[in-house]
């Protein structure tokens, strides 16, 4: 069991769609990052995937099969917030997990907790936010699960432990297990994930291999001699995803054929034409938040 297929998932809370027709295929044996702004529907998607929330429509299949409780032997979940029992010690949480999951490796849990510098005798209420996250992560990674669903797994952790969690995720994928995680820290996603999906307002707006997305997407920037210029239809090219203008400068987000678009821009009269690489943060911001991606006026050809 490793491939997760989400088809047309829809979940509505109080008339507002939290997830709206979301479809995605998460391949096995990979690290899959889900990005999205606050309220994009990432956590709700995870809850629907795991049966914690009932989808209004759509389905989630694991290797083609609907989720049944017994599958949780192979699925580990780390939620966004602490779900530890305040009154229980870390040791008791380990024991709880050991009793619930037949494949749980107590020695591995002890090792991971030691790496996170967690005192197992402490009650959860005595742990900091980061320590609680570390306990949940340690328990999840000790389950020998084939699928790990991690919702903000580095929340509250210090940079050293954040890096440690990313290493754990990559190791799991190397063992052939699937890791699906969400994070607001795009740098972490870029470092760990092979695939990403970007959600916004409950919808999937972008997905693919990180390397492909970065290779395909470029910024073509051109400077015109004066503010009165036209793009000769360049902005309407299907490969141009966005066109932003500031005074004499125009920036085009292109999804393919950057060099050809650059040549066309030169032909239109631009004098300083450059092709710029995008990092994942740029891709994310262009996808979900145009206003954040650029303070410039956003317009297509007809308004340029």
């Amino acid at each position: 069991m490793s491939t997760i297929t989400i088809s047309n998932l829809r979940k509505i809370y109080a008339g507002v769609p939290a997830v709206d027709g979301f479809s995605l295929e998460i391949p096995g044996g990979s690290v899959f990052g889900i990005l999205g702004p606050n309220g994009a529907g990432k956590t709700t998607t995870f809850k629907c995937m795991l049966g914690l929330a009932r989808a209004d429509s759509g389905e989630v299949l694991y290797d083609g099969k609907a989720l049944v409780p017994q599958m949780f032997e192979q699925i580990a979940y780390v939620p966004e917030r602490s779900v530890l029992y305040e009154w229980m010690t870390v040791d008791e949480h380990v024991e709880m997990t050991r009793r619930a999951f037949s494949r749980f490796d107590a020695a591995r849990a002890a090792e991971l907790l030691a790496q996170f510098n967690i005192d197992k005798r402490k009650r959860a209420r005595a742990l900091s936010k980061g320590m609680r996250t570390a306990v949940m992560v340690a328990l999840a990674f000790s389950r020998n699960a084939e699928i790990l669903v991690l919702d903000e797994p580095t929340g509250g952790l210090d940079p050293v432990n954040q890096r440690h969690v990313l290493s754990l995720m990559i190791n799991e994928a190397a063992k052939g297990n699937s890791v699906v995680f969400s994070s607001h820290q795009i740098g972490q996603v870029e470092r760990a994930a092979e695939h990403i999906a970007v959600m916004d307002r409950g919808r999937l707006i972008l997905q693919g291999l990180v390397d492909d997305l970065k290779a395909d997407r470029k910024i073509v920037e051109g400077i015109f001699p004066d503010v009165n210029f036209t793009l000769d239809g360049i902005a309407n090219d299907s490969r141009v995803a966005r066109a932003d203008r500031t005074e004499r400068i125009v920036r085009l987000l292109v999804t393919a054929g950057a060099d050809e678009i650059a040549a066309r821009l030169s032909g239109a009269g631009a004098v300083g034409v450059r092709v710029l690489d995008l990092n994942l943060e740029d891709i994310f911001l262009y996808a979900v938040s145009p206003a954040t991606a650029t303070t410039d006026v956003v317009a297509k050809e007809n308004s340029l």
Partner: protein
Amino acid sequence: MNYVEWLRVRNLLRIVAIVLAILVVLAVVLRVSVARYMSPESWIAHMASGTGTRETRTTLPDGTNRVILDDPADRTHIVIDDHGYAGKHIVVTEPTSRAHKENSNVNVGSIHVIESPHGDMTTTVIDTNGAVPMIYYMALADIVALLVATILAAPFAREIDGHLEVTLTKPCSRFRYAAGAIGADVAGIVAASVLTVVAFYLCQLLFESARLDFSGINARAIAMGVVCPLAWYALWCAATTWFNRSYGAVLGFAWPITIFIGILTLVPTANAVALFIHDVAWVLSRLNPLSYVSFAEPTSSGTLAYTGSNFGLRLSLELLLFVVYAALAIWKWQRVEA
């Protein structure tokens, strides 16, 4: 799968055990404090303090110490057979005019008193080491069990309150989890009853050779005493599951609401309003398992009997309420979302 619920039960039983242990320690202190008052010598000295009383002491072949107090002037004759730890058998013969006018046949705890008037004299037989009816133990055990049941009666609401991501991602069905959680709590409630009975039995042992009676009426008392707290638990388990966001308030008001409704059922039906209030309260009280509880009361003959009619029906109703309320709780639990 229900390790957390078992931990909750264990922690609560630990507190119950500590409280009961303190009670036993207090009983030990009391036993030591009253040791000299409870000795046969001091008791007989008190009885023989009247002027003109003759005292005769003998030891019977079986080792029983017999003291005979005879006061011809008062026409009072007392025979005390002291069996030591096994209790006393006392026969008092006195003028009927000095004996109790009302029927004084009494069974309280291990004390049994039977008065037999004959002519102008009355013979009173007192045994201090009778079997203790289980109703006493079960009444005490139920107080503890009901408190424990009230505290435990939110197994699902406590999970809904921030732990569903743990509970619902275990490899077992919601029904199985729910049945296990209720099972753990039921075991805890029964264990609290047993602990209480054991503690009070120990307390009694400090004072006399306690004998328990599990027959007849006592078996009924045990059955009712065990089932009633379970039905009470199920009632509040259902309530906390349905009103899970305010389960603390639900449990906090469980007893005040129950007592308030109970008081309303006692409203005299003097006028239409009072009758209406009484009837509404009565109907509401039928939902409460406590309203079907009836242990036993002394009868006119001095023996204990189950006075509530239709014991079988009442017990069946308690069991039915347990099943219905538990089913309501599980039904709601199967529909909760994180």
